[in-house]
């Protein structure tokens, strides 16, 4: 089952990712991104990150992406102009660079990682309890700092979104 599920959802993720890039309409991209997130959540679950999977869906798909969709609707952003003009550098080297990047990363991963026994569903589970305990003991300071960061972000968003800017 593990391999099957992985293949299915990895496929979905990659497909949605490609879709995100090639679709011209923001809404389509947004939906495909949501697809990526959903399938990633399943993969997290498979890797034993059940809390993080739920958080992924709630926070990312449920809040952030809703914001995106909301903004897209609000601006009523139409399909992207098809006049595909990019800087010369990107036009000539972009794809090449990406291919090189991907190949190198995969090569290094293959070389650097030990050949592990592989992932089996349920072999390890980071329950919400573990996450919470760790988060509020050894990672307490970063946690508080992120809360401050959120606060700052809220204030900044409000300031930016005022009428008279």
């Amino acid at each position: 089952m593990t391999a099957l599920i992985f293949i299915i959802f990895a496929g979905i993720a990659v497909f949605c990712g490609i879709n995100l890039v090639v679709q011209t309409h923001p809404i389509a991209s947004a939906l495909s991104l949501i697809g990526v997130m959903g399938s990633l959540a399943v993969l997290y679950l498979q890797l034993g990150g059940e809390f993080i999977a739920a958080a992924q869906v709630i926070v990312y798909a449920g809040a952030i992406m809703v914001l995106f969709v909301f903004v897209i609707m609000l601006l009523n952003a139409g399909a992207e102009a098809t006049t595909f003009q990019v800087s010369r550098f990107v036009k000539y080297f972009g794809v090449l660079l990406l291919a090189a990047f991907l190949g190198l990363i995969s090569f290094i991963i293959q070389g650097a990682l030990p050949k592990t026994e592989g992932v089996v569903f349920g072999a390890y589970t980071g329950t919400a309890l573990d996450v919470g305990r760790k988060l509020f003991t050894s990672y307490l300071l970063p946690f508080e700092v992120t809360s401050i960061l959120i606060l700052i972000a809220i204030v900044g968003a409000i300031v930016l979104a005022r009428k008279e800017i």
Partner: protein
Amino acid sequence: MPANPLNSPVPLNWYLILSAILFALGVAGFIFRRNIITVFMSIELMLNAVNLSFIAFSYQFRQVDGHIYSFFVMVVAAAEAAVGLAIILTVFKNRATLMIDEVNSMKY
């Protein structure tokens, strides 16, 4: 049923390579798309890819820290989305465009 290949365990590398692929896709979106919102979403895609590798490593080492890192990534992403979208709204309000190439007054 270990005989069945679909039932065999998945090497960790697959997850990492998947995350690399998604990351590269995010970069591609960032490079090739002109709509600010889409570019933004590509960034989110990259963040997600990184999260995947975090979780994978956390599985590998049987430690929950990876989950916490990706949790922090999510928080930061939320903050970033809030501010970024506000900026996008403002840009749209002032320039009536979402095309990223037309927002280049920093050049001059």
